[in-house]
């Protein structure tokens, strides 16, 4: 007998026969298992009594547990709340769309600024290129007359291999 305190979820294990009878009443047994239960029912008054009690208490639950009908106000309020949710979703979507568009604009502007920067740098480099070439060629230009006296590049390489050139000439080579 329950003394009014809630029954906990960790009660002792249920008698296997009761578990079997409940599953039988719920139609959750295989045909073989159901036949086994029916054999027990046919031969045991105790099993029949237990089955009847389980069945009656479940029927009492379905028959007597009150089920109040929902009010119209409940339905209306639920539908109204859903409409508000739909509106919020729409507003949110519009905001996201605006953010997406804003993002595209920002991305486009950054891309344009980046392209401009790269273009400027490339142009500046291109314009600086002749001067850089002249700077690199300066040692050769300085000794241009001496180089003209050499007959062949092969001869100059031999001189270089023997370490006869100064730093400036080596740079030029």
């Amino acid at each position, binding site marked *: 007998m329950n003394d009014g305190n809630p*029954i906990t979820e960790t009660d002792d294990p249920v008698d296997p026969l009761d578990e079997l009878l409940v599953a039988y009443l719920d139609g959750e047994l295989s045909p073989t298992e159901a036949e086994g239960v029916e054999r027990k029912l046919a031969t045991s008054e105790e099993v029949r009594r237990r089955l009847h009690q389980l069945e009656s*208490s479940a029927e*009492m639950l379905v028959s*007597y547990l009150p*089920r*109040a009908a929902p009010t119209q106000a409940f339905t209306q309020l*639920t539908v109204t709340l*859903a409409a508000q949710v739909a509106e919020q979703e729409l507003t949110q979507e519009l905001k996201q769309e605006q953010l997406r568009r804003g993002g595209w604009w920002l991305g486009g502007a950054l891309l344009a600024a980046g392209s401009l920067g790269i273009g400027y740098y490339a142009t500046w480099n291109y314009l600086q290129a002749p001067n850089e070439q002249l700077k690199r060629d300066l040692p050769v230009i300085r000794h241009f007359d001496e180089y003209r006296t050499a007959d062949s590049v092969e001869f100059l390489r031999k001189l270089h291999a023997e370490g006869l050139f100064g730093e400036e000439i080596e740079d030029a080579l």
Partner: protein
Amino acid sequence: MLQVRDGNATAFEELVLRYQARLLAVLEHLVGNRETAEDLAQEVFLRVFRARHTYEPGARFATWLFTIANNAASNARRSKSRRKEVGAPAPAPNETSALSLDQIALASSGAMPTRVADKSEAADVVRQAMESLGERQKMALLLSRFEGMSYQDIATTMQLSIPAVKSLLSRARVNLRDLLTPYMEHGQRPDGNLTVPADEGADLS
């Protein structure tokens, strides 16, 4: 549900109309309070509405609905426990639709101006027995008896294995039998009070 998913506004109203009574019945007995049950049911419907784009046609809608209901009820219970832990005052007895043991005893003793009718008394006894069960036993029992769900569907709804559901349900049914049989056979209520025997009052067989 597919029409709701595709943005049909009236389909959602039809869905609410079709399932609200079933959902409220389960939630009311699960939380033991009509007002809380209505709030939870609304929350469940709104969750369904918000998640409509993720609904898969293969899933049985009732199973999906009661899975959300089970989660919502669990969250509500946890929130309630936390509120209790921080010392919030417990709801006054008249805030719950379910009668307390004292009220039921008073009603059956004849001290109330109008003694409850036999049918009403039986309903009180059943409600009292239900309230004595653990939350998961109650949920499994309600899904099984009110919704006619199979063990497989209950397992999906409550995120349990089938053997766990089998064990939970058999424990719930045995507890219910132990609580109700004395009343059915001898008119003895779950709180220990004797009352009109069932065979002299409501027909319980």
